[in-house]
């Protein structure tokens, strides 16, 4: 009797050992086939892209690798290179301090702006990352005065009086503002003005002459430091102002609404460079010759007004995107206007507005280079003016402007990455 075993030619008794997948459907080859060469059109695009990248790198790499770092002038660079491609980075090694701090900031005091930047990171941390302990915000509140003292130097009494003015205003607002917002607001402004006036009169003449930190006038600030200062100051000032303007524009009170609308529409309708010219040229005619307001302050005011109008419109978009039910819910809970805004409306509206606000902030930071046209020596001003006009470095463009681009890119990319983190962190919907 034939067993089934004999009558059947072959029976598999175990599983076959696994074979490797075909070579063209694993690993890099598969990835290449799927992503780069999947269709003829795709292949064509890939080849074209590689060609473009090769062309760019073929130009840039030798230029960077052949770069010279230690020569004394452009003509020396050219002598050494003998017609070969190669960058003349020597201009950066020789003038880096001018690019970063301007050409008049005393070299022995560079640690002051450096320290101010480090402290800025500490001060900004609790604002940017709200998981950190809230107590750190006290340092954030003190930071503007510390930074002012560090960068400008002079007598410490000036920032102290400035701080006392705000403390006085805060106290008055707490006492008066509990029942009547308007009374408290006006009282706070009055208290601050009184403190500043009295304090300003009490600071002795020439107090800055022998101060611990040597006084540096605004005119001596420059370089990337000036861009950073303008950017940070103007963004942080224009954000609250922008929120106030956006709320004012939605207000039911015709006067406030009218003022906000006219302000926003007027400022948005004027190019920033015009405002800067007004700041540098026209405003000097409204003051007597001896008592002109500091140019830095004038520029800060103008840029702040400009960007606050834009931020106001961005936030208005956020407010408009909220369903009407949210406003009605706040009303039905019996919340007063400030509480409704603070607890319900603004947290949602601001979250919606984050990409827009960051967009304005990045744009504003780059717009600070416009101050070079009113003879302030920011990073671009330093390049266009003094450095390109020196006999040694006239004719060096790519190296200098590339360095400027790199600095701006680092900062702007950082801001952009932060905003994306913030959006993910605040995402409460389940998309």
């Amino acid at each position, binding site marked *: 009797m034939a067993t089934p075993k004999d009558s059947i030619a072959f029976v598999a008794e175990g599983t076959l050992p696994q074979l490797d997948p075909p070579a063209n459907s694993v690993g890099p080859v598969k990835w290449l086939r799927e992503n780069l060469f999947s269709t003829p059109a795709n292949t064509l695009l890939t080849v074209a892209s590689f060609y473009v990248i090769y062309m760019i790198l073929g130009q840039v790499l030798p230029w960077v690798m052949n770069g010279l770092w230690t020569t004394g002038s*452009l*003509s020396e660079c*050219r002598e050494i290179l003998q*017609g070969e491609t190669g960058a003349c980075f020597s201009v950066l090694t*020789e*003038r880096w301090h*001018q690019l970063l701090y301007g*050409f*008049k900031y005393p070299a022995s005091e560079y640690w002051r702006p450096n320290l101010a930047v480090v402290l800025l990171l500490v001060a900004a941390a609790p604002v940017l990352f709200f998981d950190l302990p809230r107590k750190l915000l006290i340092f954030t509140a003190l930071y503007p005065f510390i930074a002012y003292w560090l960068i400008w130097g002079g007598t410490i009494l000036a920032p102290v009086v400035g701080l006392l003015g705000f403390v006085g205003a805060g106290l008055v607002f707490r006492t008066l503002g509990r029942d009547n917002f308007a009374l408290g607001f006006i009282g706070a402004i009055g208290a601050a003005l009184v403190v500043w006036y009295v304090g300003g009169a009490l600071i002795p003449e020439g107090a800055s002459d022998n101060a611990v930190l040597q006084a540096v006038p605004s*005119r001596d600030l420059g370089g990337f430091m000036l861009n950073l200062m303008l950017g940070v100051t103007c963004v942080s000032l224009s954000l609250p102002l922008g929120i106030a303007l956006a709320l004012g524009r939605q207000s039911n009170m015709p006067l406030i609404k009218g003022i906000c609308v006219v302000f926003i529409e007027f400022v948005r309708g004027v*190019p920033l*460079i*015009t405002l800067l*010219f*007004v700041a*540098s*040229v*026209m405003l*000097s*005619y409204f003051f007597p*010759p001896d008592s*002109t307001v500091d140019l830095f302050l004038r520029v800060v005011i103008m840029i702040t007004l400009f960007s606050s109008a834009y931020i106001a419109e961005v936030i208005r978009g956020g407010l408009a995107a909220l369903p009407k039910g949210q406003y009605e819910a706040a009303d039905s809970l019996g919340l007063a206007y400030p509480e409704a805004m603070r607890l319900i409306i603004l947290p949602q509206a601001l979250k919606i507005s984050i990409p827009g606000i960051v967009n304005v902030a990045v744009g504003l930071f780059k717009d600070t280079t416009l101050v070079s*046209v*009113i*003879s302030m*020596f920011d990073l671009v*001003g330093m390049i*266009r*003016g*003094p*450095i*390109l*006009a*020196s*006999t040694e470095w*006239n*004719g060096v*463009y790519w190296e200098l402007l590339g360095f400027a681009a790199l600095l701006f890119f680092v900062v702007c990319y950082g801001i952009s990455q932060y905003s994306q983190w913030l959006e993910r962190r605040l995402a409460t919907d389940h998309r």
Partner: protein
Amino acid sequence: MKKSVFLGALTVAGLAAGAAAAGTLDDVKARGKLNCGVTTGLVGFAAPDANGNWEGFDVGMCRAVAAAVLGDPAAVEFVPTTGKTRFTALASGEIDMLARNTTWTFSRDVDLKFEFVGVNYYDGQGFMVPKELGVSSAKELDGATVCIQTGTTTELNLADFFRSNNISYEPVPVETNAESQQQYLSGACDVYTTDASGLAATRATFEAPGEHVVLPEIISKEPLGPLVRHGDNEWGDVVRWTLNALISAEELGVTSANVAELAAGTDVPETNRLLGSEGTLGAMLGLDADWAKKAIMAGGNYGELFEKNIGEATPIALSRGLNASYKDGGLLYSPPFR
């Protein structure tokens, strides 16, 4: 932008008289510093070096005035100005004098209410072309494309020149000098035109300067000089005669090397009057008797300033040309010190 500048200029005209009422000389002496407007940077004329010290031909003028008035060539606060802010800075009193290669024109002198105290550099608009173009005269440039900075007097001069010679050209408008250099080098235009001193400075920065020629024609008059506000004649006299002292010093052979020796007294009466060992010229200006000596010691006489900053030994390599003393066939001619 243009409009705000225009409004600024109007206001300048209105306010200049008022701002100038106080004596600038007394202000400068009381302040102990001269506020001198310069450019934000022009090769050879004014630019800060790696240590932040201002250098250049126009800077030398500021230092000479500071030395004459205050006795210290370092007692200068240099206020950088752009082409757009320079006149308002002067009119509003932010600066005491402007030494910023500014062309002396009728309307600036009369309408904007400024006082040009003299000419420290005679410039004029010229053309630069690549050698391979084989052009030897600007009149052969029929049909050429020309890189030209917009909104400048050079633009108007160019149109005038081509029209009066009945030839045509195609303008390539550019915004800044740096941009025009790049455009010219990349071949976007056949001809580059600006002031001759600027052409020389630009050509000096090229990788192969020998492949470019500056054509002989100079098609405009650009007398550059320091200026002060209208209406303060005492201060205007100080700046004017400081400039004249530098020019006279070259005529009389007084240099920064021998001025100390000559100040003790010489056989040349005018040198003695200039340097204060004879007469009371300094007192007439309201300055010390040795004001001119200090001004010359600050950076040398006119010729020394020229050679050190823009002369043939520098990369800019400008020849004296019109800016030679009248004795050498140039236009520099100081009124006598008497």
